[in-house]
């Protein structure tokens, strides 16, 4: 079953918006509903549109399996190193040593609802970015591996 030009054009048009919305969900993970897993799933939905509308030979020009594996491994390493960094700062594993310090991602906020400042939360935004990369790479890799197994010469 070959996809028509209408499907391809629609998938190309929706793909960047899905990626941008997924990045929004990941970076606002500590303020609004959602977080690393949900944002990564939304980003993987964007690339799934691209993968579904093409054959495996056409998609390998844009997405390669080694790239996605690297993305997944980098997210996992980011999570683990951010957790181990707390041990060096005399905190337990994943202890939040960055929050309320005034530095990067450590703005001091007053009590009550957060008015929407992204530069808060300490370790939590970094962990969200790590989980988002991990989920994006893993779910896209699953779909790409499924596509690599089918034969395209069927009518």
């Amino acid at each position, binding site marked *: *079953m070959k996809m028509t030009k209408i499907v391809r054009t629609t998938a190309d048009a929706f793909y960047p918006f899905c990626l941008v919305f997924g990045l929004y*969900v990941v970076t606002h993970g500590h303020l609004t*509903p*959602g*977080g690393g*897993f*949900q944002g990564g*799933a*939304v980003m*993987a*939905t964007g690339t*799934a*549109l691209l*993968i*579904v509308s093409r054959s495996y030979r056409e998609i390998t020009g844009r997405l390669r399996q080694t790239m996605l594996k690297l993305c997944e491994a980098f997210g996992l390493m980011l999570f683990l190193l951010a957790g181990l960094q707390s041990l060096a700062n005399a905190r337990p594993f994943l202890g939040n040593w960055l929050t309320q310090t005034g530095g990067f991602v450590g703005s001091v906020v007053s009590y009550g609802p957060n008015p929407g400042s992204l530069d808060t939360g300490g370790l939590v935004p970094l962990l969200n970015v790590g989980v988002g990369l991990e989920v994006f790479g893993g*779910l896209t890799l*699953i*779909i790409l591996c*499924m*596509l690599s*197994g*089918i*034969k395209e010469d*069927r009518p």
Partner: protein
Amino acid sequence: MTPYLFFQGLVLAGLIVSGILVVTFKDLLAAAIASGAFSLLLALEFYLLQAPDVAIAEAGIGAGLTTAIFIIAIRGTKRYEEEE
């Protein structure tokens, strides 16, 4: 009857209808799309019940990725279900 309850009943009726359509369609591509519509209505119902976190996860995984995996599986096999 408040509008909130009326809208929630509408979504639940749509869930039942799309769930029946998934089982009865002989065209498997249409059944996959109906399954995606089921997930989208379920995400709307989660949002109405004030669980937006679960709603985003359901819309991403259920409506997006599961439908994509079903469509890829249909591309590798046959599109129409055979009569027994």
